[in-house]
């Protein structure tokens, strides 16, 4: 088992935002995480990667049997947890090409591989620009996926790669996720719209509601139900409860 989350309770300040999450991911496996706004999907990813404001009150997160909660953000990245955030800070004065070079050096990724992925994700024209400054929605998603491909993590956490982007970009980021999987990564992908599922259907989907995982099942089936019943339907759902 690559990732084992058991009975996870998380607060941001005084507020409880995750209330007893159980989630498992095998090596090489892809899972989607869906649910309405504010249900805790992004919070779960941010907790796994270790953003300090997400305070774990109870439960455990094991990664390759190691206790992730004892490790800093940097250490988690180093042992193979990578993330593509949904909201990105603008970093003025840091050129994208410099960031990518630094990341490649850190992970020992050959220059040719970096060059290949730059074209694969169509970001060449952004290289001379400051990181995330005035990037469009699609450009940001592509850049984040590119950093993951350069990092080659064992576990890729990908937050809403398909929201706020056009069809063409959904296709590109979906191929990038496929590429990550074919390179041996596992992935936990948050999707609100389910647009990426069309390109990578062979996966499980978890449905979150109010900080809890309500159910899981085959991704295509889950999204079919959600599109007809809405997230409200989850409450009465007969699918296997987590």
């Amino acid at each position, binding site marked *: 088992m690559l990732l084992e989350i058991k009975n996870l309770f998380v607060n941001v300040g005084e507020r409880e935002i995750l209330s007893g999450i159980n989630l498992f991911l095998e090596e090489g496996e892809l899972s989607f995480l869906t649910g309405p706004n504010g249900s805790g999907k992004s919070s779960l990813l941010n907790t796994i*990667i*270790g*953003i*300090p404001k997400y305070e774990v009150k109870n439960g455990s997160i094991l990664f390759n049997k190691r206790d992730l909660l004892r490790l*800093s*953000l*940097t250490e*988690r*990245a*180093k042992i193979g947890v*990578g*993330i593509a*955030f949904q909201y*990105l*800070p603008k*970093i*003025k*004065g*840091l050129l994208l090409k410099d*960031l990518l070079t*630094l*990341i490649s050096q*850190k*992970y020992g990724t050959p220059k040719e591989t970096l060059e290949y992925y730059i074209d694969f994700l169509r970001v060449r024209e952004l290289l001379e620009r*400051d990181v995330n400054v005035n990037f469009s929605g699609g450009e940001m998603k592509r850049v984040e996926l590119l*950093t993951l491909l350069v*990092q080659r993590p064992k576990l890729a956490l990908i937050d809403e790669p398909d929201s706020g982007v056009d069809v063409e970009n959904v296709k590109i980021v979906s191929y990038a996720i496929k590429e990550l999987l074919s390179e041996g990564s596992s992935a936990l992908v948050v999707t609100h719209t389910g647009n990426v599922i069309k390109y990578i259907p062979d996966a499980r989907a978890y449905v979150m509601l109010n900080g809890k995982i309500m159910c899981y099942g085959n991704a295509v089936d889950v999204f079919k139900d959600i599109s007809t019943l809405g997230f409200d339907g989850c409450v009465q759902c007969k699918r296997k409860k987590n």
Partner: protein
Amino acid sequence: MQKKEELIERAKKALNKLSLYGPDIDLSQFRSFKALEEKIGFENLDEKIIKKAEEVGFSYDQSSRSGSYFQLNNSSIYTKSRTKGLEIYSLEDALKMEEVKEKLWSLLSVDSDKFTAFASLVEKAGYVIIVRKGTKVDYPVQSCLFMNNVEVQAPHNIIIAEEDSSVNIITGCTIMPEVVGLHIGISEFFIGRNARVTFTMVHSWNKETHVRPRTAAIVEEGGEFINYYINVRSVLTLQTFPRIYLEGKNARAFSYSTVVASKNSIVDIGTEVVLNGENSRGEIVSKSISKDNAKIVTRGKLIANSKYTKGHLECNGLILSPSSKIYAVPELESNIDSTELTHEAAIGKIGEDEVNYLMSKGFSKEEATSILIKGFVSTRTKGLPDYLQKMLKNIDEMIVKVL
């Protein structure tokens, strides 16, 4: 032309006149100062001096330089032009020329404050660079004002770029670590019609130095003045407020400054651009980093006196310690209706989101912080020549290292 005796008289009267900005200092401690002639030649400079000069952009072997000036303490020990149409003099030699003499103290007044007054009375050395009409100087011209073992340096520099000429000038001012000093550099720039001057000044002082540069520039029709000021190391006190007069139609000025202050340093720095020419444009960008107990005031002023003018002002401050302070004073003044003046100012500490973002990509907290500081200081403008881009990059790295 102003008579010498008159100037001396006015200066003497202004010796106690406070500067409009910045902390006051007691100049009486420097009154007994006498400038001496240096015996040492440029060829015999000490290894330590050369190394220190190179830190502020001076190339001792002069590779890729069109000309050089080196001042040790209060003596011009080297002047050299390697390009036709480019003339480099020591102030003393240049003052034999009427065209230079009439420009001395024409943009700045000896009695504007005690520092100009003091400098005018000392007034030893400094460089005069003249770029003759139509001359496009390929490689940069370099100068270094070096304080080795004296407590006062008060050079007077005059830069004249005649019609249709263009030149890049790099000036490095530095001091040996153990010297307690006062540096008052007086600089007057005359930028002719359609001439272009890129002036980069790099300062690297020690924590015992008081620095009071006094600068003014006039830009004629179609002329352009690009001014970079970078203060690499912390000083005891620093105050400067260059004024750029865009007199001619379509004249342009860009002024960028980066200042670092740490320990108990007090810095007051700004630029004023006066838009007198129709359709003239001015841009002022400043970046300040404060640490420890340092205090930085960062000013900027745009004054529009003519129609179709445009100006933008930007103050950015990065605070690295809770006990340091940055105070930004952006000012816009319009005396006509058809102008467009804008400003933005932002002061803050290093963003947590940015640090987390970089840490999630595998960087340590320290690495993330230094990447962000470097990003903050790196000054980039399109069309900057390669050598300058490279030099500024090295300087950015030094700033991060020194901090």
